């Protein structure tokens, strides 16, 4: 067997890639390490903090999952994120379809208006939104937070979905209509199923956005007893928390993101439209 000769530039590339991976993974490693550290590995009294805890422990996680406050915040976060996904897809997907299929003049102006909420820093746009939400009695409610998060994510859903619909040949709509399907029927039965993989990407995006969104959630929930995880984290940070407990919360925050991405990724397989055309 002959080994392929590796030249210098390839070695440099390889080293570069390894360094980049280390840079990306290092904070994650630190977070993970802290989350399983015993108290002695954190509070070392002047000695350098060890690279690996003296006595790895899952004590912090046990504490968290038995703390009512944490559990209710986690459930609140999940509920808000899923609701945001549903609301923004229900609104954003048909809008994107209409924008793609019935092209009309001024479409770019409309598209720009759609993202205008996001043209301002969140801290600016949060004020009018909260004003309105107070009037609508949406303050201190999960649905309020979900609506705010939908407001933030709908423009992105529309843009992602427009990209998806553009790849679906118009022939499919037209074929369905000639066969007797109404526009709604062909959208629901033909176009949506074909678009599903692409829309999954939009769903992931909304979930992630909602899951770690802080400013809107904070303004809407600050004075009540509901908390999403980021809001709860802020509330914990206002007293002096243990590093290792904080790290454990961070790990817990990351887990649903990973799980959700895995579930939805199943639908993101390539070639879903293969065989439609030619």
């Amino acid at each position, binding site marked *: 067997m002959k080994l392929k000769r590796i030249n210098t530039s390839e070695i440099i590339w390889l080293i570069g890639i390894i360094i980049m991976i280390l840079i990306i993974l290092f904070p994650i490693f630190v977070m993970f390490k802290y989350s399983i550290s015993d108290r002695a590995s954190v509070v070392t009294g002047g000695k350098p903090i060890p690279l690996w805890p003296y006595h790895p422990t899952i004590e912090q996680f046990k504490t968290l999952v038995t703390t009512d406050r944490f559990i209710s915040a986690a459930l609140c976060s999940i509920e808000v994120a899923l609701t945001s996904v549903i609301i923004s897809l229900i609104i954003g997907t048909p809008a994107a379809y209409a924008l793609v299929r019935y092209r009309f003049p001024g479409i770019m102006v409309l598209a720009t208006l759609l993202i205008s909420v996001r043209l301002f820093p969140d801290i600016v746009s949060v004020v009018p939104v909260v004003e309105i939400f107070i009037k609508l009695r949406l303050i201190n409610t999960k649905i309020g937070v979900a609506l705010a998060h939908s407001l933030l994510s709908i423009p992105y859903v529309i843009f992602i979905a427009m990209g998806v619909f553009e790849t679906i040949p118009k022939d*499919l709509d*037209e*074929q*369905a*209509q*000639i066969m007797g399907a109404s526009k709604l029927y062909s959208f629901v039965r*033909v176009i949506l199923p074909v678009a599903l993989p692409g829309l999954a990407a939009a769903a992931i995006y909304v979930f992630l956005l909602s899951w770690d969104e802080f400013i809107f959630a904070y303004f809407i929930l600050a004075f009540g007893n509901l908390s999403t995880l980021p809001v709860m984290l802020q509330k914990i940070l206002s007293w002096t928390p243990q590093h290792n407990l904080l790290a454990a919360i961070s790990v817990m925050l990351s887990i649903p993101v990973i799980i959700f991405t895995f579930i939805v990724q199943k639908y993101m397989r390539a070639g*879903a439209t293969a065989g*439609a055309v*030619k």
Partner: protein
Amino acid sequence: MATVKFEQVFKRFGRNLVIKNLNLIIKDGEFVTLVGPSGCGKTTTLRMVAGLEDITSGKLYIDDIIANDVPPQKRGLAMVFQSYALFPHMTVAENIGFGLKIKKYRKDEIIKKIKWAIELLNLDGLEERLPRELSGGQRQRVALARALVLEPKVLLLDEPLSNLDAKLRLKMRAELKRIHRKLRSTVIYVTHDQVEAMSLSDKVAIMNEGSIFQVGRPTDVYNLPENLFVAGFIGSPTMNFFDAKIIKKDEKLFIEFAGAKLLIPKRYQKKCANYLNKDVIFGIRPENIYEKRFSKIKSVKENTMDVIVDVVEPLGDRDMVEVTKEGIEFSCLLEPEAKVKPDELIKVVFDLSKSHIFDKDTKKNIIY
């Protein structure tokens, strides 16, 4: 089953006039082909019948009812797109049953009809496959099955064979013919391939730049093209054209080109009288020129000319021979037994009873 009629139909995309005064009648059970070069408006015409494009002006009748404003869902037609447009997330059976489900057929009826279509198009065993698991030819048949199962009044086919390889195309051509003979449905077929049009249709409509140039049975448009475009478009190998002049000698009209004077047949003499001493275009198909010894008609001075052989391309049953006369090139289909060789001087006989003379300005066939 139904009739379709276009009456002075125009179609405009923005400022672009794409269909110009289209008039066409398609009878019940007829297989009519729209044929013409790419971009001439065939697909647009088909889409107007389907209701996918609105008609700028004029009338479209389906079954003697004006259909201009009838939505595609209500026209009761079926269409096979060039792309097939199979629903990628549905199995073959689901694709075929899609329209039946919308039309609210009973479940057992749907199953029966799907089975009928599967059998008709030899798709047995593929019912549960997804479109991406099928070959090109199979996809094409599924698209056809999906259309036929609805028993459409009119079946619209847009270049259905153009994505298949040559061998499969021939097979599907025969298949289409068989199905049409069996079902006798009204078919409007679109293709840019004139051979396909000729071999499939009861009637061909030759289109160019948004207008129909001639409508007729394949043999008629072949033997009697109405104009220069049709003459050049229909037939393979293509017709030879010469810049020519009509002259008079001994009270008879001759056609003069490439330094030769050939006698115009008696029955065309009168029609050509108006063109005396005028420039015209003379056309004759390669298969209507013979090598003298193998000529099907009597060789006389007034139909024979000396030419020099340029290139010989054996086609098997015939030789495609390029010849020149006074710098003018044309082609003939000769018997291989004539054994002509490049640079050889040979005598060829023109069968003028099968030739055509076109007005240089209007491009109309004078002897039509």
